[in-house]
């Protein structure tokens, strides 16, 4: 029994460690390749460690993508904050101000979470042109805020649904109205929900490629993932530049994930509607 148990425990750890290595391998490869010089990068020496270490790849890649990195920050931070704010109001209404048909309306909102963006790109571009938002960073922010409405409403609705109605009723008796309840009862206790939504929206918007590609045609205004894709297309044999650029683009979301993993996990479950 104990021998069998030892064997099965070892097998479990072996499988887990093997998968962990598999999941980490691409990051390892990006790192060792990014730290090589152009001379060291070759197809046959792909797995060799970089020696001597060189930051040429990173500085070259940074020179190419730093402006786009800035664009991504200018897109992602406002878009995440605005859509979290909109979501908190909508979630509050869907959770605590039910009216006839509000649940059906909420379901109609949720459909938007599963929409393949290709399905709306043609009218989207026409509309943005008509609104004068096409080709601008404000346009990208606008689009992310609109398409963030379903998921942010969902996340805040689930959170506010867990707040007892007695609390709301007590506030009503104290004379709080619609805005009073939001401002004085719910907002002070909704930090966890804001954390989940902000992290989720930050990750999704930072990692977006399609909207950035479609809405801004000027590569200088493009977000970082568009730039990394272009970098990979131009520096086809300079893998150290490609890998450095990719790692730089991945860094902000990985850092956020490692620092705030608990909230990220909750976002994962909410994103599947099973939160």
């Amino acid at each position, binding site marked *: 029994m104990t021998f069998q148990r030892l064997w099965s425990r070892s097998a479990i750890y072996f*499988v887990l460690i093997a998968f962990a290595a598999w999941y980490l391998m*691409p990051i390892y490869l990006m790192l060792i390749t990014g730290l090589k010089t152009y001379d060291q990068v070759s197809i046959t020496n792909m797995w060799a460690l970089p020696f001597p270490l060189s930051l040429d790849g990173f500085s070259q890649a940074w020179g190419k993508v730093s402006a786009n990195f800035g664009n991504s920050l200018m897109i992602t931070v406002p878009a995440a904050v605005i859509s979290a704010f909109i979501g908190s109001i909508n979630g509050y209404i869907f959770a605590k101000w039910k009216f006839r048909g509000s649940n059906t309306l909420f379901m109609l909102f949720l*459909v938007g979470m*599963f929409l393949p963006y*290709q399905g709306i790109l*043609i009218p989207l571009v026409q509309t943005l042109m008509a609104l004068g938002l096409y080709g601008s960073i404000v346009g990208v922010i606008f689009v992310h805020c*609109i398409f963030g409405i379903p998921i942010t409403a969902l996340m805040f609705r689930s959170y506010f649904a867990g707040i007892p109605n007695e609390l709301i009723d007590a506030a009503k008796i104290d004379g709080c109205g619609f805005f009073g309840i939001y401002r004085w009862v719910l907002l002070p206790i909704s930090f966890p929900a804001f954390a989940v939504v902000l992290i989720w929206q930050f990750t999704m918007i930072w990692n977006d490629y399609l909207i950035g590609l479609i809405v801004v045609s000027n590569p200088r205004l493009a977000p970082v993932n568009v730039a990394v894709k272009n970098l990979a297309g131009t520096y086809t044999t300079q893998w150290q530049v490609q890998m450095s650029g990719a790692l730089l683009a991945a860094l902000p979301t990985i850092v956020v*994930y*490692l620092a705030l993993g608990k909230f990220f996990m909750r976002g994962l479950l909410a994103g599947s509607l099973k939160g």
Partner: protein
Amino acid sequence: MPVSRSKETATTPGGGSAAPTSAPHRRAFKLRGDLAIAIVVLMPSIVAVAIFIYFFIGYTLYVSVVKWPTLLPDYTFVGLQNWLNMFQDMRFQIDMRNLVLYAGGFMTQCIVIGFLLASLLDAKIKSEAIFRTIFIFPFAVSGIVTGVVWRWLMFPSSGLNQLFETFGLGFLKSKWYTDPTFGILAVTIAATWQFSGYVMALYLAGLRGISHELKEAAAIDGANTWSLYRHIIIPLLAPVTFTAVVLTGMGSIRVFDIPAVLGTGAAFSTDALAFHMFQLTFQSNKMSAGAVIASLMIILAAFLVGPYLASLQLEEAQ
């Protein structure tokens, strides 16, 4: 209304007759006013969803049945002609075949790996949090970065093939995404790397929801591990599997980023509907042809999402 008034008078015996009747009345009036405010505040979002989701979907479907062959709009009705032309198109036919292969490969890998890892992590593992963090982190990495790094990992004369050779696993060598027939399956490996941790998280949450008493009762009952999984755990996790099927199915329909990095490949072997749609619409300006693929993607998504949302609504009603 009468009910609340009688309650009010019952709980405040001997109270003044004016106050108990007018206060609830005023409160009810104020509440209705606040509900009106709520609906007004919600209105911009309702309008945005109505336009940017529902009207846009309808508009795309409409563009798929008008002429519009170039950048200049042409709303001449042509019926299903664009659709019939698309079905004749060789690249489109390969895209559909790729979709089937991709969905099969991606869904199977994500569900099998996600379930396996979740079950292992549920077996009271030391440093579970570290493993979990590692398995999920690729989900925080963008599709473009995933595509760029896996393009090199699967570079035929290097990368994984070289690694396999070093470890005497030469039989595992593959042409990966350069394979003219099954290149799309290499794309699913990269996509699985990115997404399987998410599926694992779903299964892990599901497993944590199954009581230990149930598992232990089955163990005492003499159920060995295999039949415990087969008869108790897997059936109990069916809703999670349904969720995983819907999410990975959606991922299969809209896959775009990795094919955008790899390009269409030899004989379109790494092409996807979404990438074809993008090239038709925004590079060749064939609006109606692009709208046909866009519409098809919406219809395919509806077949997955419709039952899913319906099941959620049932759950909520219960």
